[in-house]
């Protein structure tokens, strides 16, 4: 039986890439206000699980039950997935987070632009608001992408290695914003490698290894990943 504040449930979820089974029997509940770190070695299936949750991959068996509407699901890909030559400014990227409410046709009004300005100010982006994405540093670009997510008022947020190639100051800003989003009721799933960031940020950890998932808390995974306590 799901808790009333559960936003996402995985039930015996098995996922494959082509003919190769990558994940088997993954279970889990993701509640509002929690931050879950998704960890595992390269090729363990972290990105596959994220794809499955986002509906990009059809489950081989089991199911993904997401109570968050599409419009409030946000996906922050690795920066390399973006076309950085695209002629778009920081402000335009942040404002595109209005998609759930404005779609393809509705014009952005003063209220949205004021919100956009507030988001950029919070992320320290105001000095770069008219700068093309291709001219930003990795950290500035990651702040802009998170700005789009804030505009989207996401309830379920998936982030794929958001701190990779990002400066320390940006890591601090991003951690603060993510903790604030969780405090306001968002469920956040974040692919992480850094143990220190995991300890600071995550409430729970889903460790993927050899196609199976093990749940634990940050303190326990730091001590002994292999004997991590199963919570789900």
């Amino acid at each position, binding site marked *: 039986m799901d808790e009333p504040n559960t936003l996402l449930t995985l039930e015996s979820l098995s996922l494959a890439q082509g003919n190769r089974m990558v994940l088997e029997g993954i279970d889990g509940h993701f509640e509002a206000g929690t931050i879950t770190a998704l960890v595992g070695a390269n090729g363990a299936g972290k990105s596959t699980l994220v794809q499955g949750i986002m509906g990009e991959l059809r489950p081989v068996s089991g199911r993904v039950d997401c109570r968050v509407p599409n419009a409030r699901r946000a996906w922050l890909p690795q920066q390399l997935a973006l076309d950085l030559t695209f002629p778009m*400014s920081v402000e335009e990227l942040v404002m595109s987070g209005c998609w759930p409410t404005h779609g393809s046709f509705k014009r952005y009004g003063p209220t949205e632009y004021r919100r956009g300005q507030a988001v950029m100010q919070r992320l320290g982006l105001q000095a770069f608001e008219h700068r*093309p994405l291709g001219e930003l540093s990795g950290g500035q670009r990651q702040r802009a992408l998170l700005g789009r997510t804030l505009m989207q008022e996401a309830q379920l947020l998936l982030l794929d290695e958001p701190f990779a190639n990002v400066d320390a100051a940006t890591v601090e800003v991003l951690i603060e914003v993510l903790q604030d989003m969780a405090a306001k009721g968002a469920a956040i799933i974040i692919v992480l490698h850094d143990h220190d960031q995991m300890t600071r940020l995550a409430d729970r950890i889903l460790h993927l290894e050899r196609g199976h998932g093990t749940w634990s808390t940050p303190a326990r995974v730091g001590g002994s990943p292999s004997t991590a306590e199963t919570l789900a």
Partner: protein
Amino acid sequence: MIDWLFSPLIDFGFMRRALVAGLALSLVAPPLGVFLTLRGMSLVGDAMAHAVLPGVAVGFLLAGFSLPAMSFGGLIAGLLVAGLAGSVSRLTGHREDSAIASFYLISLAAGVMLISMRGSSVDLTHVLFGSILAVDSTALWLIVSVSSLTLIVLAAIFRILVVECLDPLFLRGQGIRGGAVHGLFLGLMVLNLTAGFQTLGTLMAVGLMMLPATAARFWSKRLEGLMGLAIAIGMISSVGGLLLSYHAGLPSGPCIILLAGIIYLFSALFGRYHSVFARWRRRVQPMLPPDAHG
């Protein structure tokens, strides 16, 4: 000078029709070209221009030099090639551009074969290279209608196209499948290529789409700037090429595309961004001494 510019347009109806056709095509083809370059599909436009040929040939064989029949045939052939290439790409996992390249070559060969079997080399030349000076009222209505429709659809899907170009996953996350947007965009491209083949020919219609778009990238880093500049370059090329063709007694299609080509070369040499001159000018500046930062 004024007489050189305006007298052909005042004196001759065919020049006025050619001018309107050129301007209408220049209003919509370059923005499509901008999106093609941004989506990394510059050569797909060229491939699709070849792909419409068998449809045009079938239209020609069934109804002679009837622009509506040839355009309709071209449209069907273009959409068929785009659809088949997309299907093969999805079913086999191969990249879509390689599937389009394969299908356009089959399509091109089929088109040339069809025209050769029933027409003459003059017919083939007309289809391949067009004749803007032979645009009649029916052709003009068709071109203007296609341009108007393209403008409306492009405005309607503009934001989706922009978001999809930058980050397709974001759009999919919102429950919108990029395939439909992509298909609609390819449809618009094929529609414009078929509208443009009467004036510029199937082989050169894509020139008015791509050259202004690629030239504009040397002058602007903003999407609105790229669109506006590409349209302006397309219009200058159309009007200039038309007048040059009239006064020098040269074929109009190549004049228009060559003029666009000259603008592209000038932009690549002297444009504001990433041109040869801009790269040469961007020398490394020495750092200021610490106390100069204030």
